[in-house]
């Protein structure tokens, strides 16, 4: 059962091949048996999941044909889930039982999905390896000595190991797409504003977006149907019509123009990885797309720009964690200042504290213009580059990451090298454009991903492109031996 996609599981439930209760128990047993090797879950929701599964079976028996009814999923532990621990992988929130559901969690619940657990992540979504969690590192199921990527590494590892058919994630600089690539699965970051951020604990508000980690583009489309849509509770939610993303999956891609930015294929790029990406581009060409050379001239500034804006916004967003209204507090504070300072020092991890410090510095008097305002202007240039390119082509293609999964611990003391993992992904966040990663082959027996980025609100066409590629390749059907 666990090797089936959501589309297949949905058909299986409707045809009464198995029940949602059997399916949910199957995944819960797999998690109990295999997750000690991966550490991809922080919280398992066994009792509530089985109760919800029984409810789903009743509705199926009564004739409900909702596509996601009875399907187990997991949520990255950045999404508030009512009456369930929501930690953001931080000691700061190790006692936070959320009093409400995030909008996207609520929408998936209403669509009939079964929440089986909350997945591990880099603390407050800051990281590219899921080594920054207060709940231990997550391991890549393809090679337990390597990282799954981050910050949605728990979701990626869980889906790759088929502990759950799909999971939610969040993406601020690549945190869905990069772990999807390193774990050999599909990861979608929609247009900024497409999915509500209400109840998604904020890291960098102008960059954060909720998204999906799944086995296939078809599954991502099914989930996006449920998650997308205007939310009045999120002031940045966009009132854009939500199509049925599954309806156009099989459309022809003849005539679609695909651009390969020369800056994303430097000479230093791993030759085996580069070869696989070019082969993937050729597959799309065989399907009728046309390939074009394009340029994103300011792309070399994307990482510095991102690592000013994201820490700046994080320093503001994490100012709310003071140990008073929620979250962990330090013991025996001498005064209010001491309460704030020691609560935050004791309960934020090292990477989080570093980013808050960087953010505070770049926003401080005397430095704001040189750093933050400068970065905002460069963000405009980077976005303009994308818009210029998207006048010539429909989609932009590149590798998702410069390398396959790296060894655990190999970059945890080398911040710059770690940050450079995001080199191909951050542009999509800076410009607010939708993008995804799909499996495109193996380098040294480790999966790598193909990255596709489109213009605003082109998720239907993006998923169509990815789905057509997955119809002529089988990389998305590969799974690690742990499965």
């Amino acid at each position, binding site marked *: 059962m666990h090797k089936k996609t959501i589309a297949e599981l949905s058909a299986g439930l409707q045809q009464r091949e198995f029940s949602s209760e059997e399916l949910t128990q199957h995944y819960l047993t797999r998690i109990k048996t295999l997750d000690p090797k991966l550490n991809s879950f922080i919280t398992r929701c066994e009792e509530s999941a089985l109760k919800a599964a029984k409810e789903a079976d009743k509705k199926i028996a009564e004739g409900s044909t909702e596509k996601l009814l009875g399907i187990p999923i997991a949520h990255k532990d950045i999404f508030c889930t009512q009456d369930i621990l929501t930690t953001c992988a931080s000691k700061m929130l190790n006692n936070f039982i959320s009093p409400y559901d995030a909008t996207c969690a609520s929408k998936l619940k209403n669509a009939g999905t079964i929440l089986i657990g909350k997945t591990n992540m880099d603390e407050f979504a800051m990281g590219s390896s899921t080594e920054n969690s207060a709940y231990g590192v997550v391991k890549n199921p393809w090679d337990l000595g390597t990282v799954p990527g981050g910050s949605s590494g728990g979701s990626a590892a869980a889906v790759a190991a088929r502990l759950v058919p799909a999971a939610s994630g969040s993406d601020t600089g690549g945190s869905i797409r990069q772990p999807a690539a390193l774990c050999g699965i599909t990861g979608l970051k929609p247009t900024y504003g497409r999915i509500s951020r209400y109840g998604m604990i904020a890291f960098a508000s102008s960059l954060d977006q909720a998204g999906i980690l799944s086995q296939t583009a078809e599954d991502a489309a099914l989930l996006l149907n449920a998650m997308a849509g205007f939310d009045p509770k999120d002031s940045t939610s966009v009132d854009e019509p939500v199509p049925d993303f599954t309806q156009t999956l099989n459309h022809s891609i003849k005539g679609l123009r695909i651009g390969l930015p020369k800056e994303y294929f430097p000479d230093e790029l791993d030759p085996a990885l580069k070869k696989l990406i070019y082969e993937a581009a050729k597959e799309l060409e065989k399907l009728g797309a046309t390939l074009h050379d394009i340029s994103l001239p300011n792309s070399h500034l994307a990482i510095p720009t991102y690592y000013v804006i994201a820490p700046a916004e994080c320093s503001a967003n994490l100012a709310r964690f003071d140990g*008073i209204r929620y979250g962990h507090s330090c013991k025996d*504070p001498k*005064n*209010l*200042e001491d309460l704030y300072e020691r609560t935050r020092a004791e309960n934020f991890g090292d990477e989080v504290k570093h980013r*808050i410090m*960087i953010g*505070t510095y770049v926003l401080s008097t005397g430095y704001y213009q040189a750093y933050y305002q*400068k970065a905002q202007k460069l963000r405009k240039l980077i976005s303009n580059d994308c818009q210029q390119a998207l006048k010539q082509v429909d989609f932009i293609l590149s590798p998702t990451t410069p390398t396959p999964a790296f060894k655990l611990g190999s970059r945890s003391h080398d911040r710059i090298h770690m940050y450079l993992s995001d080199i191909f992904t951050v542009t999509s966040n800076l410009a607010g454009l939708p993008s995804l990663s799909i499996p495109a082959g193996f380098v040294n027996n480790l999966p790598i991903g193909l990255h596709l980025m489109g213009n605003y609100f082109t998720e239907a066409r993006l998923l169509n492109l990815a789905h057509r590629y997955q119809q002529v390749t089988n990389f998305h059907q590969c799974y690690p031996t742990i499965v």
Partner: protein
Amino acid sequence: MMNDQDIKKIAKMAKIYIPESELAHYRDINDILTMIEQMDKINTDAVEAMSHPLEIIQRLRDDTITEHNERTRWQKVASNVEAGIYLVPQVFDQVCDHVTHDTKE
């Protein structure tokens, strides 16, 4: 670039306690600042700052009540609450002079 005094000052602003013994650990922030300085290579005098990825303006709504007091529900997760009030450690160290004057009168 930040020296140890700067690190202490920024830590104070960020409300994060960093003891003297740990200041050295934060000196690598200067590596990030060096990387960030690549931004200076481009002249952006004529470029408008972009604070938001989409060309949208802040949505407004009617000035009507939509939310209701759910203080009990939200305070369930607080560490120290009494009679609907969040309790915090003492803010002021001593009674202010003007209060003493008022009492005398």
